[in-house]
């Protein structure tokens, strides 16, 4: 009864199409058939990207633009300039966390649509710890801020997780509601509770105090990675905000990969996702595992806002960027819930958003065309995965006879 509205209950979960050819010991499967299927599956995202670009081209043609020129502009603007490359990495950073958070929950067949709200609350927590603790050394303050962010995410994931496991409330609806509550709560905390009252209106009544929390202490700011990249001869200009959270995100992807495929905890996640009844009978507490994984997903979600908060703005205001959670879902789908796929997906989205600026300024193509491409890409990627896995299934059947 409690599982009643779970989508594809009892089915192999769709985000993780059973991909028997996924190898963990060798890079490529040993037998030729499996290797062929592996390549097909590896090629699917590219086909989908091509398809989405094709749709984008149609739209550009419709508004009288030459798609080749536009794409050329997009590429030269994005990769022909060092600051664009840095910006892409900076834009990818929050999406890596958002993608990992979504992917982790998808791994256990839960749809955490609430990454959105979880990261906003995480940012609120981080901001409060960031500005209220003063005089701490960075090596204490910064970890505290990061922990606070994770705590915020966990807290916001707790209710949907609890409702799911104990009351059978579908997590999709509950997390969407939690997102709206998070927006309002965050705005209340910023505007009415923690608003930075030390701001002044400029002499003569200029400007307006921003509705934001106080500035975050320097000891809680994330340093940029410019020094690191300089070792490789890459010198990012100062208006690029690539920071060490990028590194943290990549490391987290590695950890997640390891946890999912090489630890009992990850093993349990996969078992519960694929067959909760069998997992239960084998002594795995499926609900507890769902609960924990959901909270963990929330903890990762809590980190999404940190790159913007600690490396860019330095304060939390009511215009703090939104929508990262939904982008994260797309990134997770793009990456097929594989941690490293998530990184690729996040960088792709970073590229699209940077490229959108380029074409908007230099080709006069509205940035929304790129948003449409993103939407089409998500859809075509899942459809492409489905078509390919179906094709593989048919091929296997044929070859089995």
């Amino acid at each position, binding site marked *: 009864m409690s599982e009643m509205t779970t989508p594809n209950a009892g089915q*192999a979960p769709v985000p993780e199409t*059973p991909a*028997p050819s996924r*190898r*963990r*010991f060798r890079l490529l499967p*040993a*037998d030729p058939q499996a290797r062929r299927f592996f390549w097909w599956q590896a090629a699917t995202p590219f086909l989908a990207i091509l398809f989405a670009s094709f749709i984008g081209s149609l739209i550009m043609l419709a508004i009288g633009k030459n798609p080749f020129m536009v794409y050329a502009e997009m590429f030269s603007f994005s990769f022909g300039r060092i600051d664009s490359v840095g910006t892409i990495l900076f834009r990818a950073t929050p999406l890596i966390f958002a993608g990992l958070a979504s992917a982790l929950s998808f791994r256990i067949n839960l749809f955490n649509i609430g990454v959105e709200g979880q990261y906003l609350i995480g940012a609120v927590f981080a901001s409060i710890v960031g500005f209220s603790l003063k005089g701490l050394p960075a090596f204490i303050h910064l970890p505290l801020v990061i922990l606070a962010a994770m705590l915020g995410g966990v807290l916001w994931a707790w209710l949907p997780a609890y409702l799911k496991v104990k009351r059978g409330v579908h997590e999709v609806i509950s997390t969407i509601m939690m997102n709206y509550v998070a927006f309002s709560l965050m705005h209340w905390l910023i505007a009415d509770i923690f608003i930075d009252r030390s701001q002044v209106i400029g002499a003569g009544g200029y400007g307006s105090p921003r509705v934001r929390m106080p500035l975050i202490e320097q000891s809680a700011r994330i340093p940029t990675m410019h020094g690191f990249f300089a070792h490789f001869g890459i010198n990012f200009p100062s208006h690029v905000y690539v920071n060490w959270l990028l590194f943290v995100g990549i490391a987290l992807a590695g950890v997640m990969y*390891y*946890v999912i495929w*090489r*630890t*009992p905890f990850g*093993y*349990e996640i*996969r*078992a519960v996702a*694929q*067959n909760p*009844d*069998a*997992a*239960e*009978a*084998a*002594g*795995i*507490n499926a609900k507890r595992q769902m609960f924990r994984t959901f909270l963990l997903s929330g903890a990762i979600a809590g980190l999404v806002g940190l790159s913007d908060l600690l490396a860019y703005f330095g304060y939390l205001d009511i215009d703090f960027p939104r929508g990262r959670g939904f982008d994260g879902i797309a990134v997770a789908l793009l990456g097929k819930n594989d941690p490293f796929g998530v990184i690729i997906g996040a960088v792709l989205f970073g590229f699209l958003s940077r490229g959108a600026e380029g074409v908007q300024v230099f080709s006069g193509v509205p940035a929304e065309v790129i948003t449409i491409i993103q939407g089409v890409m998500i859809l075509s990627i899942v459809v492409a995965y489905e078509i390919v896995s179906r094709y593989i299934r048919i091929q*296997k*059947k044929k070859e*089995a*006879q």
Partner: protein
Amino acid sequence: MSSTTGAEIVRLEGVTKRFPGVLANDRVDLSIMGGEIHAIVGENGAGKSTLMKILYGLYRPDSGTIYLRGAKQSIDGPGRAVALGIGMVHQHFMLIPAFTVTENIILGHEPSRTFLNFKKVATHIGELCRKYGFSLDPGAPVSSLSVGEQQRVEILKVLYRGADVLILDEPTAVLVPQEVAELFNNLRALKAAGKTIIFISHKLDEVLEIADRVSVLRQGRMVGTVEAARTDKRALAEMMVGRPVLFDLTKPQVTPGDVLLDVSGLTVPGRGTRPVVNAASFKVRAGEVYGIAGVEGNGQTELIEAVMGLRKPIAGAVHLQGQAATGLTPGELRRRGLAFIPEDRHKRGLVLPMTIWENLILGFHRDPGFSKPSGLNLKSIMSHSNEMKKRFDIRLSRLENPVLALSGGNQQKVILAREFSHDPRVIIASQPSRGLDIGATEFVHQQILKAKGAGKAVLLLSADLEEVMSLADRIGVIYNGEIVAELAADQVTPQELGLYMTGGKRQTREGVPA
């Protein structure tokens, strides 16, 4: 409609159907006469259902021809079959519990294309009921009906569509004896009205009671068709299996030791007011196989789930190796030496998309042998898996393949290997040979007896009387959620067991251990 009585109405010629790795039907010929009750028997997987699904248009045959009333037909879907007067009642009912009887009956065959006129339909259904002696409330939701009543809805559905030929796939498997009797009355009424009935069953007594003729399938091939009046159980069984049945298993002689599993007064709530398991009590000793026999649906599943900690009992206690074990989780029970072979391996036993080696450690993945602080110990897992593969003769190409790529028998071996490898003290085996071929079945039986020989306590549940009688030392009979008798396996006849199983007889209270 009685015009067809006596003449051949259905004829299958050379029907072949192949599934990946299985030849489900191999050049099958079959002839059904109008107005007869024609039984089809065969072991699990013999291809009975497949053949019927082909006749009903659910599967297309790879080759072969179907004749109906002498005319060659291509049945490309159930719609076509219905139009040709063929109806099928599946073993697993295709009913919609949330719908009323009437809604279920008319679905897909509504009297008008737009609006529903329930009044008109109700009179039609009423007529059908009267004609064939069915008693049903057309307005009742199907979820409130008993299994027997649900089956009557299925039959009505078929009749409502004007079927002359009714296919019933294992209709009695889910029925209690009274319901079987009532079903047979209905079938006789149908036959009297000129309908043709194809009847699939594993229960040879029933077949001999109701059928006019019997066809036997074995491993996809048609062995032959005989007149029910001119054959007997033994002959039929031999046709089915291909050799004399009741192969003797040599039970190792073991003196039963301590009570390892003690279930007392276990009561599990059901959907209605009556508990599905009612104060069930039994004891299983070391070196003993305790069988639980019963017609499916009498509370076996729930009983085992309650013992395994998968379902909450409202009363009673379970003791494992002398220690209280009621309300423990499956994980805790397993750590205390309980092994579990579930009745539905796809549902409870295996995680199909995961690899074979992963399934071989399911539930034991946190054992120190398989997991280090840094994560899974793949080296020891792989060596363990290879050992299991050898010891249990699991036919597989690569341990990294998903377990769903294995045949049913080998899937079952994966479960056996997993459950037996951790030296359990008590083994609960539920329908351990269901769906397995003879070879795999024998392997499973040997493993169970080997465990008994090694001094383990085995609780065996099976719908297959022969299995229970040949493996168990003592047999508890479950009927309506109660253990109605407890008998020594070597002192009971199948007939007597059947009587208990169908509620025809029960032991006095003293006979049942408290």
